[in-house]
């Protein structure tokens, strides 16, 4: 198989297949990831409602299979003291809102589906950014060794000394003060092209979907920036060993330029552990993003972490608001971790536990 | 007591009562031992109905190509087969009068005279035999010593465990002295070694000296990575001898070493064996080692001992075509016939489903006949001497061209069976 300049040997493919066949867990992982990816990509087609549309009359509906006894409280102030009349109203779940609604009457299922977009986008873009940065630094350090290596790796040490979550909230918190735009709004091609509308009309979900989607750019930049170290470490280790290989020596002896050697010989051979690390990093960054949105350092409201933070205030009355997005996070991260385990077992790149939340 | 049974047709007779007949000097009688691995690909018959005996103070060699099951057979002796492998049947009779007395009443079927069948003993007891009864030297000394513990400490452990065992011979617990995770944490945090004692360390140093390591007192405090391969193998031997075993199993002890070192190690083993009168089971693929070291020898092929007997029996009058082939593949300096006769074909698959009821060597055998397409029992090779046994119909009859299988018999059958 040929992916750009990177080739994957048939043996690798065979290992992957063999591990996949023998491991039911890998299959579960692939299914989970597929679900998340489908939800993220086709959100405007499959979300039953517009995730931003509010309906205060339908707020805090329980998910299917549950009934909620809501205490409707009428409050009046008499002489500064509150008099309340409470009556119990049974609220039934409806199939219109399978996962219930939040305090604003927004559909939780649609929000969970759209939240997959944010998580996946930040996870993927952040990982790509971290990988670009880290692999460049790591290959440079490992290939040139000596002072360049020392300098870059000490920088990595300093960077490691700041926990990624702490560094991320510091950077987002400090930079977003004056530049309120921590997010970049792009139009959703599925909606603007009319595809979503056509599809929804066809299946009988005529709700118009949001035409734009928010990419929390600052969050992407920051999570990419705080996670480069892991890639740098792996890439450096690989470069250090690969540069000693005969074919690299030969290429150098033939006068190949460093850039060319790195791209033609070192990078392709270092790609396996980098890919495995990248898989794990996507999970780590999804967790990091949800933590950031939970703490209020995020650029979008369509995020699992944000919904958990919102639902936290309603735990006692409407447990599902904080629970559903949490389950979504757990399932998608489990999916990625299972696939990561599968790749690691099949490719055996010898990394364990690199990269944190 | 058992009736005098002919060596012939012994393979199928698993009556399980009493030790097999043999020489009174025997220290170990292995009978019908089978070890299988239960893997995802299927059942692998690594050791298949193996019989042999080891006598006091002799070196018994097991020779075979890699993959013939000889290492697994060795591990089976000392009960160290790891999951997914399991010893599925067979008896390992070991001569120990004290042990026999102890179990004579409780486990009568496990005792026969001075012999006990270790397979029938409780697991704790069986494990306790490791060290004082059996011990083992492994192929690669580098990976067979724990890299993070000093060499002396590791040998001292082996000494210590026997010291404790002697203090309370039949309690396995006494050897651990509640050495659990709590003790590990203490040992890890504090720089004292909780298990070994000073005297066992001194003994370890003695042992190191005995195996010819210079400055043993200092080297005892070094780590395996600070030793050379040869030195490390000497240390391994010292460790194996720490329990003063009756039977020392040496599994390819020189394979991983430089040629120059190999001879030294073999000499060392030879000297120690003579000095201590230990029995040695020498496992190797190297016929030269066999010829140099062994009194008696067993040839393994596809999990079976296909021929066994004294060195002279096997080397000078081999019966089994495989043995002949093996010996034929050694260049003989005395007889400068340049034409060696390598054995054609490959070591067979040991997958159960792919092993038919036939002589496993038949597909490579130049003398394969239609008789070979059935289970082959062990036959006595020479009349009146049940020491030389062979699993080949040629022990009973002559090769006949008429019965010979066609050359492409097995290839055709493969195609029919649709195997890869």
């Amino acid at each position: 198989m040929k992916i750009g300049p990177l080739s994957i040997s048939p043996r690798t493919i065979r290992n992957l297949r063999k591990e996949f066949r023998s491991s039911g867990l890998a299959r579960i992982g692939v299914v989970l990831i597929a679900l998340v990816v489908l939800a993220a990509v086709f959100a405007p087609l499959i979300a039953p409602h517009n995730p931003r549309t509010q309906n205060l009359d339908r707020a805090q509906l329980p998910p299917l299979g549950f009934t909620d006894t809501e205490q409707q409280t009428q409050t009046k102030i008499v002489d500064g003291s509150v008099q309340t009349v409470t009556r119990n109203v049974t609220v039934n779940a409806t199939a219109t809102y399978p996962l219930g609604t939040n305090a604003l009457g927004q559909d939780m299922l649609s929000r969970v589906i759209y939240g997959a977009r944010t998580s996946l986008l930040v996870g993927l873009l952040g990982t790509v950014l971290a990988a670009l940065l880290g692999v460049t630094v790591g290959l440079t350090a490992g290939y040139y060794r000596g002072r360049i290596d020392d300098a870059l790796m000490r920088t990595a040490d300093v960077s490691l000394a700041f926990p990624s979550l702490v560094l991320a909230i510091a950077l987002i918190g400090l930079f977003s003060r004056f530049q309120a735009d921590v997010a970049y709004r792009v139009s959703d091609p599925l909606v603007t092209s009319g595809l979503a509308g056509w599809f929804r009309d066809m299946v009988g979900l005529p709700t118009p979907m949001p035409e734009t989607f928010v990419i929390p750019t600052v969050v992407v930049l920051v999570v990419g920036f705080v996670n480069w170290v892991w890639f740098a470490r792996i890439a450096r280790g690989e470069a250090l060993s690969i540069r000693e290989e005969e074919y690299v020596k030969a290429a150098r002896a033939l006068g190949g330029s460093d850039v060319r050697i790195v791209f033609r010989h070192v990078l392709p051979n270092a790609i396996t552990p980098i890919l495995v690390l990248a898989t794990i990093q996507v999970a780590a960054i999804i967790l990091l993003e949800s933590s950031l949105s939970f703490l209020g350092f995020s650029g979008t409201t369509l995020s699992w972490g944000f919904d958990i933070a919102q639902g936290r205030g309603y735990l006692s009355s409407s447990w599902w608001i904080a629970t559903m997005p949490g389950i979504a996070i757990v399932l998608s991260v489990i999916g990625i971790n299972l696939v990561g385990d599968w790749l690691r077992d099949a490719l055996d790149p010898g990394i364990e536990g690199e990269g944190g939340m | 007591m058992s009736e005098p049974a002919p060596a012939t047709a012994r393979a199928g007779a698993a009556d399980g009562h009493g030790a097999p007949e043999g020489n009174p000097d025997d220290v170990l009688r292995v009978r019908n031992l089978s070890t299988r691995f239960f893997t995802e690909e299927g059942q692998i018959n690594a050791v298949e109905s193996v019989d042999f005996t080891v006598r006091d103070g002799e070196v018994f060699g097991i020779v075979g190509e890699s993959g013939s099951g000889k290492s697994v057979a060795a591990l089976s002796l000392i009960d160290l087969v790891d999951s997914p492998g399991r010893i599925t049947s067979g008896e390992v009779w070991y001569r120990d009068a004290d042990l026999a007395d102890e179990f004579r009443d409780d486990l009568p079927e496990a005792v026969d005279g001075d012999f006990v069948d270790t397979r029938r003993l409780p697991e704790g007891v069986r494990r306790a035999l490791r060290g004082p009864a059996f011990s083992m030297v492994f192929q690669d000394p580098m990976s067979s010593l724990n890299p993070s513990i000093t060499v002396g400490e590791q040998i001292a452990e082996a000494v210590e465990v026997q010291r404790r065992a002697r203090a309370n011979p039949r309690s396995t617990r006494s050897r651990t002295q509640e050495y659990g995770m709590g003790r590990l944490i203490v040992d890890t945090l504090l720089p004292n070694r909780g298990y070994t004692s000073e005297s066992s360390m001194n003994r370890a140093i003695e042992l190191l000296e005995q195996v010819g390591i210079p400055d043993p007192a200092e080297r005892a405090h070094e780590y395996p990575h600070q030793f050379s391969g040869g030195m490390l193998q000497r240390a391994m031997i010292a460790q194996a001898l720490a329990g003063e075993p009756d039977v020392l199993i040496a599994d390819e002890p020189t394979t991983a070493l430089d040629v120059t070192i190999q001879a030294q190690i073999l000499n060392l083993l030879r000297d120690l064996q003579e000095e201590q009168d230990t029995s040695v089971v020498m496992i190797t693929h190297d016929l030269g080692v066999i010829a140099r070291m062994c009194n008696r020898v067993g040839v393994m092929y596809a999990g079976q001992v296909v021929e066994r007997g004294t060195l002279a029996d096997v080397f000078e009058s081999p019966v089994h075509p495989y043995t002949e082939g093996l010996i034929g593949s050694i260049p003989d300096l005395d007889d400068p016939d340049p034409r060696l006769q390598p054995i054609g074909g490959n070591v067979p698959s040991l997958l159960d489903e792919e092993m038919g009821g036939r002589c496993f060597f038949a597909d490579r055998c130049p003398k394969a006949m239609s008789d070979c397409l059935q289970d082959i029992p062990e036959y006595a090779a020479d009349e009146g001497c049940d020491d030389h046994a062979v699993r080949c119909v040629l022990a009973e009859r002559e090769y006949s061209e008429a019965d010979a299988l066609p050359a492409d018999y097995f290839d055709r059958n493969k195609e029919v069976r649709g195997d890869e």
Partner: protein
Amino acid sequence: MGYGRFLLKRGVQGVGVVWGVVTVVFLLRFITPGSPIDTVAPLDASQETRRQIARELGLNQPLYVQYLDYIWELLHGNMGYSYISSIPASVQVFQKLPATLELAVAASVVAIVLSIPLGVVSATRRHQPADYAATSFSLLGISTPNFWLGIMLVLMFAVELNVFPTSGRAYGFMQSLAAITGPRPFFTVVTAWVASLFLPAITLGTYFTALITRLVRSGMLDELSSGYVRATRAKGLPETLVRYKHVLRNTLVPVVTVLGLQLGTLIGGAVITEAVFAWPGLGSEIIRAINARDWPILQGSLIVIGTGFVLLNIVVDALYAYLDPRVVAE
């Protein structure tokens, strides 16, 4: 190279990293938008007042002078004064440190106490129910965001069952110690302390329990298949010794390394756990300082965390070298 020299070398490297941390923290203020004057000065402050404040904060000096001043003051233990409370940053930060340390240590204890047995059981009973249970738990553990776990634990154990406090920190370790002699009943104090620590420690510890369980399991499986295990058994060593003294000990070597790398995750996890449980530690302090632009506190906290990270890593390296003597040789 001896053990001592090895540690010395690591120590020197550590000092270099701390210097880097200080420099980054110092520069952070200059690369982020806004001036500290905005935080300190009243909204309607005159230009004169602002200049006055700039002088007091030393902001009118050239950058390198400010930098050298900052390092000089740091070396004397002075991190400046909080813009909000006027309390010395060093005092305020170190007051918050014990709570965070307590949380981190408790979580580590939870993690180590639970994970190593789990990992050992999982590895030694491979493909048995205990292994499946431990593997599933660890997969779930590394995949669950700890803030969500914390919320769910509060919902279950504090709100519904009311067996643990919902949030906050009662007494703390030092006060619990002091209660031995102090006026408050010792048992009550310690119970309250442990109860308040329980849910946060579980919340923070779960990820690490799961992570270490996985590491121990896979490490132990690797080790169990290595040659020395067979040799160790062959020489008659009982299984307990084989399993713990030899295998587990060697398994811990890579575990310790990974944990060293994961210390940052532990501290990051502490920050968010503190936010969930209103735990008055360094994490809450950092979030407050960021929102309030309280630079001395933010800088002080980051330096303390960075230095702590470096120190702990030296400890980890020392432990690593102790567990695996080959390291020193390299």
